[in-house]
């Protein structure tokens, strides 16, 4: 049995930031990740990280307002204030640790303007900001000596007597299970993108931590809020950064019209993501698309800007579509990108109970995309996700290590927990092939989710997907895994992940059917208006022995009263 004060599950930006904060605070930390930390999906955040640096005349309150407005007033304003007011400090910390941010001519940090914001406050490293920060974070982790279990897959959270006491994890390479005992646990496992097909998300984004917490009875919040990014490739769903529009890219329909001039005359292509995605989908649905897409035109930016500031996009165009973006517009369409909802936490990452208090599983924390503080509400602003990970990663690491200081080691029966996890895996491996497969079930799930829980939603379709998810859960109970080996059995892992994805899907569908209005990314054709009177509140889903239950929490409003959202 491995032992520590703070166990961090997940090693993307939020996880590593939490591990470093806890380590700095004197805790013995173990960090577990199913992939090597630098393979984490934080890599994919291309465009930048927002922060209002007050020494250059920006104000964090402005950033907070843009975030509140972007969230369609569903974000909790106290949490948004924390994130925006601490942003500058985090950016400087990242810079001091070695991130190679782009500079201005005087050698200060340079910025670009991102969607939904009135000021240039997005700090960036070409179009690989996430990668740049992730690798630096891992450098700091190597320096710190924090114990990092790389390519270890968590099969169970150890929850007993209202406490989370660690986890059972499998070393993927050998297939051996280990119990890791901890005083406090931080979940930083990222999003659930693969629940949708296609999605911009990496194949590892299977909602593991969200599902683990859900199964432990922890409430999930705002799960219906799923962001569709305006610029993704058809087919694979691979992301084209918002940076492409931040640098001045145009969106054109089949007639060559810059249609955003009509929908959002002031912010144009840089309106909020939910808005731009809806406009694109409207153009496509009304017959002004090109083969199910609209066009992103970057030609006027010139080869130099493209090759210096949009390197990855240039390569993605060339390698995945055969298009030279310096010479031709590239077809794009809205694609599933980010989950605003997640494990409900407070601003210190502490998981809440259904009553909206810190009282359920008191030593469980969450940060990053798997958590919902909620700073993104109905729609996340571009370049706020990296910020979310580092601010709340740090805060949860600090809080988790602080709490661990006053705790005695928890009691864990190693034998019992190993056996129960082993039994679970063994039963999955023992099943007889029945013609169905993990991949087929996942495909059916993902395509149904995109079909009925996409940019536009309505009751009938969502009910169909609800029934589909229930059916797929039944199929999942019987599905077999072909690979019976112990070592690096990826088929087994996909099998377990599929279970996590189905649990996540259930909560997304339930939340979406429940919210009978249109707000942020959740746009219903049958309820096209925002309805602050009835729905200016969060929807929580938690599991009970009788099945999933819904409850509500008020939105925290500090200083910005809801207004109509125009860009």
């Amino acid at each position, binding site marked *: 049995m491995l032992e520590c004060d703070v166990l961090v599950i997940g090693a993307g930006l939020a996880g590593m930031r939490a591990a470093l904060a806890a380590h700095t605070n004197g805790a013995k930390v173990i960090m577990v990740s199913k*992939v*090597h930390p*630098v*393979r*984490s*999906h934080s*890599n*994919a955040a291309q465009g930048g990280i927002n922060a209002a*640096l007050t020494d250059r005349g920006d104000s964090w309150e402005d950033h907070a307002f843009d975030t509140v407005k972007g969230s369609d007033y569903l974000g909790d304003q106290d949490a948004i204030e924390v994130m925006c007011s601490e942003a500058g400090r985090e*950016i*400087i910390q990242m*810079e*001091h*640790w*070695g991130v*190679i*941010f*782009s*500079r201005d*001519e*005087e*050698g*200060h*940090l*340079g910025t670009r303007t991102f969607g939904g914001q009135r000021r240039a406050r997005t700090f960036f490293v*070409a179009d*690989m900001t996430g*990668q*740049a920060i992730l690798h*630096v974070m891992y*450098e*700091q982790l*190597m*320096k710190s000596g924090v114990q990092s279990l790389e390519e270890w897959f968590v099969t169970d959270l150890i929850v007993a007597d209202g406490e989370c006491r660690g986890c059972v994890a499998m070393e993927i*390479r050998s297939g051996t299970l280990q119990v890791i005992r901890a005083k406090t646990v931080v979940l930083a496992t990222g999003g659930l993108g693969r629940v949708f097909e296609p999605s911009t998300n*990496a*194949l590892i984004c299977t909602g593991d931590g969200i599902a683990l917490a859900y199964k432990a009875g922890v409430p999930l919040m705002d799960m219906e809020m799923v962001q569709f990014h305006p610029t993704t490739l058809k*087919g*694979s769903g*691979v992301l084209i950064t918002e940076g492409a529009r931040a640098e001045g890219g145009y969106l054109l329909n089949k007639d060559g019209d810059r249609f955003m001039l009509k929908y959002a005359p002031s912010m144009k292509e840089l309106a909020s993501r939910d808005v731009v995605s809806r406009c694109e989908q409207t153009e496509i649905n009304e017959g002004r698309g090109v083969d199910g897409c609209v066009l992103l035109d970057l030609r006027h930016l010139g080869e130099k800007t493209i090759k*210096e500031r949009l390197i*990855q996009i240039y*390569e*993605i165009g060339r*390698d*995945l579509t*055969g298009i030279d973006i310096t010479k031709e517009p590239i077809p794009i369409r809205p694609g599933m990108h980010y989950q605003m909802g997640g494990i409900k936490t407070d601003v210190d990452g502490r998981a809440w109970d259904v009553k909206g208090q810190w009282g359920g599983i008191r030593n469980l924390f969450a940060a990053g995309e798997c958590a919902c503080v909620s700073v993104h509400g109905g729609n996340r602003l571009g370049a706020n996700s990296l910020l979310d990970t580092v601010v709340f990663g740090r805060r949860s690491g600090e809080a988790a290590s602080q709490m661990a200081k006053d705790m005695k080691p928890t009691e864990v029966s190693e034998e019992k927990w190993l056996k129960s996890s082993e039994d679970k895996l063994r039963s999955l491996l023992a099943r007889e092939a029945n013609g169905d*497969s*993990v*991949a087929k079930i996942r495909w059916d799930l993902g395509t149904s989710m995109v079909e009925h829980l996409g940019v536009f939603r309505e009751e009938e379709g969502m009910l169909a997907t609800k029934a589909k998810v229930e059916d797929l859960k039944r199929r999942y109970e019987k599905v077999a*895994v*072909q*690979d019976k*080996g*112990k*070592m*690096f*059995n*990826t*088929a087994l892992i996909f099998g377990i992940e599929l279970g996590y994805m189905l649990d996540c899907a259930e909560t997304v569908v339930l939340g979406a059917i429940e919210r009978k209005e249109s707000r942020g990314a959740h746009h219903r054709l049958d309820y096209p208006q925002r309805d602050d009177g009835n729905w200016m509140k969060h929807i929580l889903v938690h599991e009970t022995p009788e099945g999933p239950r819904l409850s509500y929490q008020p939105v925290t409003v500090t200083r910005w009263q809801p207004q109509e959202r125009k860009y």
Partner: protein
Amino acid sequence: MEAILKVKRFNPEAAKPEPYWQEYRVEVEPHFTVLDALIKIREEKDETLSLRCSCRSAICGSCAMRINGHATLACKTKLSEMARGRPAVTVEPAGNMPTIKDLVADMTPFWSKVMAVEPWLQPRGPEPQGEYLAPADAMQHLVGVMACIMCGACVSDCTVLEIDPNFLGPAALAKAYRFVGDPRDQADAERLQALSRYSGIWDCTRCNECVQACPKGIAPMDRIMALRDRAMDAGFRNNTGSRHTEAFEEIVEHSGRLDELRLAIKTFGMMNVPAMLGLAPVGLRALMRGKMPPIFHKPIPNAQAVQKLFKKVEEAQKGDRK
């Protein structure tokens, strides 16, 4: 259309674990990458096939493997291009690393070498309140190195690692350059001294394999060459590598062309008896066969023109630095 992939399999749990080739035929679309095809095989034909992959867009660095014999990322390699003119596309795990299973390489040695270059920023003095000031072009230059995703393609195909596992290798050395080239890092001297030792920058053969393999255009070898230059500039010249480079430059400047005898003598030093004796058997054998460079070296006809160019370029560079 149908594609044929020949995949090198390895099952460590087999009674007698041996690598073997397995052929898969799979229906593919024209836009498919090799990774798309492998995923399709894994999902529809053979779940037991293990490989690492995640982002599908060449940023996570998981899927480095050898395709048609050369390392690359499966997710950025077009299947149709690989299949052109071949009966089958071959897929193997990355080289120069042990294989765990199928296409999954053990990257433990890779990371221990990265760790060996102390890959974290080492500034000195008090931290500024705000950011460190750094020239925009220096940072832009570093972005080209920092774009390394640690996929291991360069290490897979490195010719030196193939015969000497101690060599730090292209990925770790490029990572080292990322810090030496960073104006905020103040540990250049220590870094360059360590890198000038055995198994470091001077052990690279300049074979360009890493430049060819790198899917992100990092050109690790060019970074290693830049490190050599920096190391010599920083005064770490007491090694055969830097003596060889300096002697080469001096000889070409002097006569416009190479003089192999003088190069050897200058590289080892006339007084380095063991090294000279080591050369002797080869030299003697060559002498006996008449395969020897001329003892009396002849400069090119207008060697002064070359000497002038050396001066001009160096003066211009001094001017640029100011």
